[in-house]
């Protein structure tokens, strides 16, 4: 990470995508970014009462409401990874104690950030990565829930708390970020409440400082491998977005199915009251449908609480990686600009000036870090999604098993010979 002897620049320049092996995917990256455009007709529900394209249902707003994310496994994964890397962790961060504040202009929620700091080594100014998510704002942009219903606000606060906790832990675990000066300031400020507005400013300043340092330089062309990463991230986020919408739609349909079931079951009870010999069988069917309804409700709750939030985390996660990619571009652009400037000043040609060298170092560091980060990210992603999707399958299996049990248990009741009334 520290600067070593100046290395040769990796060969960049306009190569055809096809010549360069894609670092991330085995298959060709011809997948267009706009892959959502042509839905196959038999997968859509062409309803007479005008349901729209399932791929793009009503905007991006979640149909349900947010609930706490149980992404502790994700956390564990992150921490485990860093231990494997052999980093010595001396900084521990937790986010808890949410408090609601009502002011004249706004209502907001604050969280307490607790740090346990061991022997602390500062590596100097490494303000090269932008913190994308200002944790102190009351509502994250991506998660605007239209008309937040009061009774959910507790769960929502908890979701945020967990997300913030994770977010800060991630920074803590990051080999480079955790030593970020601004991050440290953020952590050590005495009274977070008092510094609330300053907190925002702090992070904005981080962002600003980044822009200041690297702003104003235009990158001519992104090297192939990074271009590939960028494209991958774009498509990945797009697909995740689609999956999110599908999942939301499924939950919506399941909830509507649940509503009907809750009316359906009791009708058997009503009928049972009219009958003699059939009374018990009908009542049994009613109870059975009731059990299935409960199982379905549990499924939709699980989906909302466990599945969706993690999905959305990953969309944000990939967005933050894209920002890092952009910063990398900036660094490279700066270097190239400086190099060009030097090339024009003929007297310095035999030796490369110190600041240009520094720039080159920075760029190479950045590139190496980014590639390492990306690899780590890919590993995490693979494990996380394996677990997430297996969990999804599990929840559905459990739902069906509950229903199966309910129906199998009433077969003997239905077959029973009743005493004629």
């Amino acid at each position: 990470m520290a600067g070593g002897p100046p290395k040769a620049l990796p060969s960049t320049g306009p190569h055809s995508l096809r010549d360069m092996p894609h670092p991330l995917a085995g298959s060709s990256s011809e997948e267009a970014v706009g892959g959502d455009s042509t839905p196959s007709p038999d997968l859509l529900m062409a309803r007479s009462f005008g349901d729209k394209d399932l791929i793009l249902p009503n905007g991006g707003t979640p149909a349900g409401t947010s609930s706490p994310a149980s992404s502790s496994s994700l956390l564990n994964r992150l921490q485990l990874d860093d231990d494997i890397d052999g980093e010595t962790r001396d900084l521990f961060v937790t986010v808890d104690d949410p408090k609601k504040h009502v002011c004249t202009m706004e209502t907001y929620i604050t969280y307490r950030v607790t740090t346990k700091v061991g022997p602390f080594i500062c590596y100097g100014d490494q303000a090269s990565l932008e913190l994308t998510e200002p944790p102190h704002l009351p509502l994250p942009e991506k998660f605007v829930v239209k008309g937040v219903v009061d009774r959910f606000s507790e769960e929502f606060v908890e979701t945020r708390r967990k997300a913030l906790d994770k977010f800060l832990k991630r920074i803590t675990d990051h080999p480079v970020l955790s030593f970020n000066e601004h991050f440290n300031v953020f952590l050590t400020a005495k009274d977070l409440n008092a510094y609330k507005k300053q907190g925002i400013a702090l992070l904005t300043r981080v962002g600003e400082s980044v822009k200041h340092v690297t702003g104003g330089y235009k990158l001519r062309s992104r090297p192939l491998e990074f271009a590939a990463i960028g494209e991958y991230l774009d498509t990945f986020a797009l697909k995740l977005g689609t999956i999110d919408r599908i999942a939301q739609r499924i939950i919506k349909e399941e909830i509507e199915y649940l509503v009907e079931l809750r009316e359906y079951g009791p009708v058997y009870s009503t009928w049972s009251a009219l009958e003699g010999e059939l009374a018990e069988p009908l009542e049994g069917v009613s109870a059975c449908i009731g059990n299935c309804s409960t199982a379905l409700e549990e499924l939709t709750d699980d989906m909302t609480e466990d599945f969706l939030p993690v999905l959305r985390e990953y969309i944000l996660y990939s967005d933050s990686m894209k920002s890092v990619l952009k910063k990398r571009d900036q660094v490279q652009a700066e270097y190239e600009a400086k190099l060009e400037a030097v090339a024009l000043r003929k007297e310095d040609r035999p030796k490369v000036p110190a600041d240009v060298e520094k720039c080159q170092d920075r760029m190479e560091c950045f590139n190496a870090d980014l590639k390492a980060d990306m690899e780590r990210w890919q590993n995490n992603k693979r494990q996380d999604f394996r677990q997430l999707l297996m969990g999804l399958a599990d929840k559905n299996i459990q739902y069906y098993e509950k229903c199966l049990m309910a129906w199998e248990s009433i077969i003997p009741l239905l077959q029973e010979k009743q005493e004629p009334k």
Partner: protein
Amino acid sequence: MEQADPSSQRSLQPAPLEPLGGPGAVVEASVSEETAGAGREGSGVDMMTENTFWLKKIEISVSEAEKRTGRNAVNMQETYTAYLIETRSVEHTDGQSVLTDSLWRRYSEFELLRNYLLVYYPHVVVPPLPEKRAEFVWHKLSADNMDPDFVERRRIGLENFLLRVASHPILCRDKIFYLFLTQEGNWKETVNETGFQLKADSRLKALNATFRVKNPDKRFTELKHYSDELQSVISHLLRVRARVADRLYGVYKVHGNYGRVFSEWSAIEKEMGDGLQSAGHHMDVYASSIDDILEDEEHYADQLKEYLFYAEALRAVCRKHELMQYDLETAAQDLASKKQQCEELATGTVRTFSLKGMTTKLFGQETAEQREARIKVLEEQINEGEQQLKSKNLEGREFVKNAWADIERFKEQKNQDLKEALISYAIMQISMCKKGIQVWTNAKECFSKM
């Protein structure tokens, strides 16, 4: 009579099919041991003793449906569906069946047959026909009468109707029913010649009776109440079930989108690609599995519908009782008032208002001969009235006895049929759950390989 096995051919134990006399003579057919739901314990007609005369069995099936065009009564072109009815007699010894009759009938002819049976057997809970128009449809089903699925379900329903009639201890003996199965041409004329339409009670009369009857048999009142409630609850059930089916369809179909997006996603992945791709395939399988599941459920809905329509048949029997009872009460009242008039004339006291009394007052007393003549007429009328009352009473009691016997038979049948329907519904649900577990287990395995 499960609808789940449409091509099953029910066996009857009939007699040799002898030539028949005039209307009212019966086909020598009877209930076989194997036909479900034909309880014999409460039946008014004891069939068991006649079993020894049966040599052959009859099987009835509605095997085909065909679109036809023809000219209707007003000579206009119309398209309708005709159904092929095949009757087979089965040799008792070797079980081979021989086709004895085969003809085509359309729905309206079934209706004619049923209306005839309703008039001639008012004490019987006459089996209902499948619905004329598709009701309780959810969005995937067509409400069009010409839709092949609707036609198919109707074919099954019509077969079921014939089997119900053929296995009813009283109805199976009807000649018109026999001719329906055997005589293609001219059958309509034969039915109409019975003049049954004229014998039918007018709606108005029936409605009037319902409101004004004073002393109906309590059991019938209760039964009518029950059939009203049954109709209401089954309608509600069918409506909600249709909505449930609609929603369930939606849930399954949306999962198909997973298939597509997993496939697209797998294209940009290295190690995860295969797992995603194959999981996506399972999502497609899941999404398409709902079609068969819901088709099976339609059979269940049809079984419920039959009993929805049976409720109407129950009500018809109750109405007939009310009509007869009202008739009886009116006749009794009539007789009572005539007796009173007679008495007044004889004794000379006028307790009730009469026009004659008024005019007598106004225009002078009638002569003794005139009075005698009137008394004589009244006495004749009273005699007649008493005879009529006696026979009406008898009729009424016969009706109650026979009707109640058939109602008991019906109750047994209903309980058994509906229990079987519920069992088959539960089995359908179990099968659906097992399929769901299978698909998601497969998908989980694919995910584990990511």
